[in-house]
């Protein structure tokens, strides 16, 4: 009983929200991209780059807010590589995502050496202040989820995004610029992944550490899938996965190894894809390059 009250304590719940924030934000980023038909397994790398740029900008300007802004801008720009390679040059989107992740892992450590003269952890910089019990990025993250639901399901733009992801040729035939919508959506995914990264480096910590995203981009991907490619589904999955991270230390006290708890998001996602508990189905046209007049 005591362990149950510990697990569901206020502290655990607030730490769940902190853990879930970067997952939810990045998952929503992935959602925009994938809803428009572009696979985005680059979330991990985009987050990592965002986390790094946030620290660098805060280091040089002294302002964590500018750091946050820098992460958003750079995230969006970095994602444009994925967009151009996938949309313009019809590259395999999974391969491009792998390359973005490699570039981010190598590039951040390379620049860590150049700027901070280390391969480990950067200097401490000014971090984001607390707004009440949480950092600003937690509130922004929740806002992002609600906005995404509104944009994707209640606006003409959202309808276009979904139509481009499901039936690009039909969308094209009614005059929707398929490629433009996809560029915008991949850009948004980069901006949001950058935000998620900034939350880690300037919200949770006050510095950048090599490989600090530690697979969170892939948990976000899992949350997006487990949430069946919907914003509130992604939020729910992020909270669930965030909760499992928050309690893993306590569960160890019950004799459940942390490693098993760490597997939860991935096992759940595979089960969801297999259709055991309500099948997760990706957008129809996902991964296919769009070529006008060809189907």
């Amino acid at each position, binding site marked *: 009983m005591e362990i149950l009250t510990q697990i569901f304590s206020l502290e655990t719940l607030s730490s769940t929200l902190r853990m879930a924030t970067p997952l939810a934000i990045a998952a929503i980023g992935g959602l925009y991209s994938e809803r428009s038909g572009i*696979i985005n*397994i680059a979330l991990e790398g985009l987050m990592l780059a965002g986390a790094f740029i946030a620290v660098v900008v805060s280091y040089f300007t002294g302002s964590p807010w500018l750091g946050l802004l820098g992460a958003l801008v750079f995230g969006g720009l970095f994602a444009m*590589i994925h967009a151009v*390679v996938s949309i*313009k*040059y*019809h*590259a*395999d989107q*999974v*391969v*491009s995502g*792998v*390359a*973005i*992740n*490699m*570039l981010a*892992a*190598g*590039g951040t*450590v*390379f620049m860590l*050496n*150049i700027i901070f003269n280390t*391969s480990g952890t950067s200097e401490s910089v000014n971090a984001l202040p607390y707004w009440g019990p949480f950092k600003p990025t937690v509130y922004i993250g929740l806002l992002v989820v609600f906005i995404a639901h509104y944009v994707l399901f209640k606006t003409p733009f959202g309808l276009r995004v979904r139509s481009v992801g499901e039936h690009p040729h039909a969308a094209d035939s009614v005059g929707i610029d398929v490629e433009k919508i996809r560029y915008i959506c991949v850009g948004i995914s980069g901006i949001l992944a950058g935000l998620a990264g900034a939350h880690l480096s300037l919200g949770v910590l006050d510095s950048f550490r090599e490989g600090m995203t530690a*697979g969170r981009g*892939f*948990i976000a*991907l*899992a949350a997006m*899938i487990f949430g069946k490619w919907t914003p509130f589904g992604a939020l729910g999955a992020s909270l669930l996965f965030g909760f499992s991270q928050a309690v893993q230390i306590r569960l160890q006290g019950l004799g459940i*190894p942390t*490693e*098993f708890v*760490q*597997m939860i*998001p*991935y*096992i759940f*996602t*595979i089960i969801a*894809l*297999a*259709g055991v508990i309500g099948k997760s189905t*990706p957008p129809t046209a996902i991964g296919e390059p769009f070529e006008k007049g060809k189907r």
Partner: protein
Amino acid sequence: MGVDKIDIKELAIELLIPLLAIIFSFIIGAIIVYTFGYDPIETYAALLQGAFGNLNRFADTLLAATPLIFTGLAVAFAFRCGLFNIGGEGQLLVGGLAAAWVGTFDGLSVVVHVPLAVLAAAIAGAIWIAIPAVLKAFLGVHEVITTIMMNYIAYAMVAYLSLKVLANPGEIKTPPIEASAYLWRFSNILDIRSYMNLGFILALLVLLFIYYLLWKTTIGYEIRAVGINPDAAEYGGISAPKNIILAMLISGALAGLGGAERTLGLYHYYIQGFSPGYGFTGIAVALLGRNHPFGILLAGILFGALSNGRTFMNMAAGVPIDLVNIIQAIIIFFVAADLIFRQFIPNKSEGGVA
């Protein structure tokens, strides 16, 4: 692209694209290096010297290439069946751990122990891809997502098994394997200081076997037919689910072998975090090698050279070692987006993206 038709022009393009990708990536690397105040020529000279400067370094380059050849083959083999195995990293880790565990069995002779440990790694790798294989074959679940998820399950699983089950308390590595499970090292007969071992020869043999399997047997023909068009293959009496499962299990086994070389040949134990991402670099190796065994050999040696030469590059030219990862990533972009080059090739063949 026909199954067995040799088109000289297409072949030339196949060879040209990887070459151009490498050249352009190194040019961009040079610009990056120059931007941050280093000498690009000095950098690349040091990289080359570090990778091939003397016999020891050359042997170390082949040593570094060995796991990449296995993971590259793993990715390419699945590709040939139209599948993307992005889970090579997880399969390599469980393979390495299985080999390290079997390697600790005592009382076995070399001729039994080495093959047994190697086989254990292959089986472990195949088991690790079995769930994605079955889900793909029978439910059409996209293997990219499931193999990524299996990677992360593997990270947690091998951490648990190696640290909390096999290792002695406080150790970050498993107990050393028996000498009877060692992959024989070239330094036993040659005067070299390198841990290059029989694993490289095994990689070459496996490479030849995969070439034979894919292009000289009915099994390979069926796998490639499913890769080109699963519906047409089914129409022609070839079972797509059967071949998808077979191709994925072989792919997983190949990645697992890469792990065996590391634990039986290089380390002689399993150490947490030993792979710097061999499974992912294998994707680059497969793409650059155009999913062909001989291309993979060359690409594997190139990537092995990059990872082996970078330490000397760092010492001699001062450039951070991670430049190499940046160049590798750029190579992938160019190879993946080969339309960048193809658009300059006049009269390009229709739908030439293989």
